[in-house]
């Protein structure tokens, strides 16, 4: 074997080892997928500060509101097409809206004493708070190899209005997850998994931020 071949083989082995060390192996089980927040990367946090510890109230109980969660058909149909040219674009789409419409309601049901899902903003007498989500940004990294991890970041902006239609709370949550790119046979499934995990992370973050919001607590009857 020539020196060049040996060098190339050794380089490939070293590269493969470094890839395996850096990135976890995947399986088809969703439980294997780790939200990016759990990984110690410097950029794993959101762009905005968390509230100071003294300011964050633990969710000791449900917020005493009759809330309406507005999930319009347009929101639920939000799909993000991967970017790239003919040569490099990944196939499929990230069905972020569909997953969000499945995950947001269960995540928020424990935050409010009453939560109703509606397809359009309700009349004033029907809800004390109206929760309107908007998918403001989605970004997917790509990976060269099937077993390389890639990351999907989903930004959801929440507008909360009172019964008079006044915005009382505005917040952006970030959900992200990492999963293997997948090969010809597993790519579609991996694409669904990374969307589901990213949106679930954003939904959990949404519930946490709403529960801890001093502005929403202040609006509660008796405060």
């Amino acid at each position, binding site marked *: 074997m020539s020196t060049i071949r040996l060098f190339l083989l050794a380089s490939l082995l070293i590269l493969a080892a470094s890839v395996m060390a850096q990135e976890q192996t995947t399986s088809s089980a969703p439980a294997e997928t780790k939200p990016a927040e759990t990984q110690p990367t410097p950029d794993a*946090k959101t762009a905005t*500060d968390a509230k100071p510890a003294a300011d964050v109230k633990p969710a000791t109980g449900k917020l005493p509101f009759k809330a309406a969660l507005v999930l319009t058909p347009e929101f639920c149909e939000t799909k993000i097409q991967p*970017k790239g040219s003919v040569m490099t674009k990944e196939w499929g789409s990230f069905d972020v809206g569909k997953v969000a419409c499945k995950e947001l309601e269960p995540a928020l049901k424990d935050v409010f004493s009453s939560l109703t899902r509606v397809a359009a903003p309700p009349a004033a007498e029907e809800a004390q708070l109206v929760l309107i989500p908007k998918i403001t940004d989605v970004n997917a990294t790509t990976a060269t190899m099937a077993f390389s991890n890639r990351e999907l970041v989903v930004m959801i*902006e929440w507008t909360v209005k009172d019964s008079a239609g006044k915005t009382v709370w*505005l*917040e952006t949550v970030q959900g992200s997850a990492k999963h293997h790119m997948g090969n010809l046979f597993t790519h579609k499934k991996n694409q669904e998994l990374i969307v589901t995990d990213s949106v679930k992370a954003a939904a959990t973050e949404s519930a946490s931020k709403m529960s801890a919001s001093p*502005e929403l607590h202040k609006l509660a009857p008796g405060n």
Partner: protein
Amino acid sequence: MSIKTFCIISLLSLALAVYAADKYADYPVHPAASYAITTGNSGLTIGLEPLEDLKDQKTYFDTELSTKGFIPVFLVMENKSKDESFIFDKSAVTYGPVDSSAATPNLHSKIRDNTALGVLASLDTITAFVAMAKVNHASHIQANILKKELQSTTLSPAASAHGFFYVPVPKSGPREKIRLRIPVTRTGSQGSESLALDLIF
């Protein structure tokens, strides 16, 4: 292209792809009032620092954004009031030349497309494999730009937020002074009030 050259380029591309991810430093955050450019009203203080230095842009974004027509502007917002909150909606932020009343909505989402253009435009001249690695690298840069962007938020009493805005500037030559207008809504026991804070850099 010989097989040897192809293999070497492939290896280099793979190495680039593997090590591109998660290598972006966080920009240091200081108290809002400590920045050279600051403004404030009703307990809200905003500090601003434009990242003009290409070396700094390379450090925190792994790309020179100014040469692509954007200047990253770091903002720190602090609510020092005891009982009032400030609602910050990033879609309401505008910018424009300082000597003009014209104001343009913030085009935050365009920067990531533009950042990728330099890579995507050259795909015809290189192999698909190398192109994939470059696109992979660009996608990580785009993700980092998104994560570092200042997002809409409600600043509760004693809370702060920070992040970047990406303001379009000429790709070459000196730029005009820019006025960044940041509207916020103050909410509290006295009702709500709209405020606009200007920063010039």
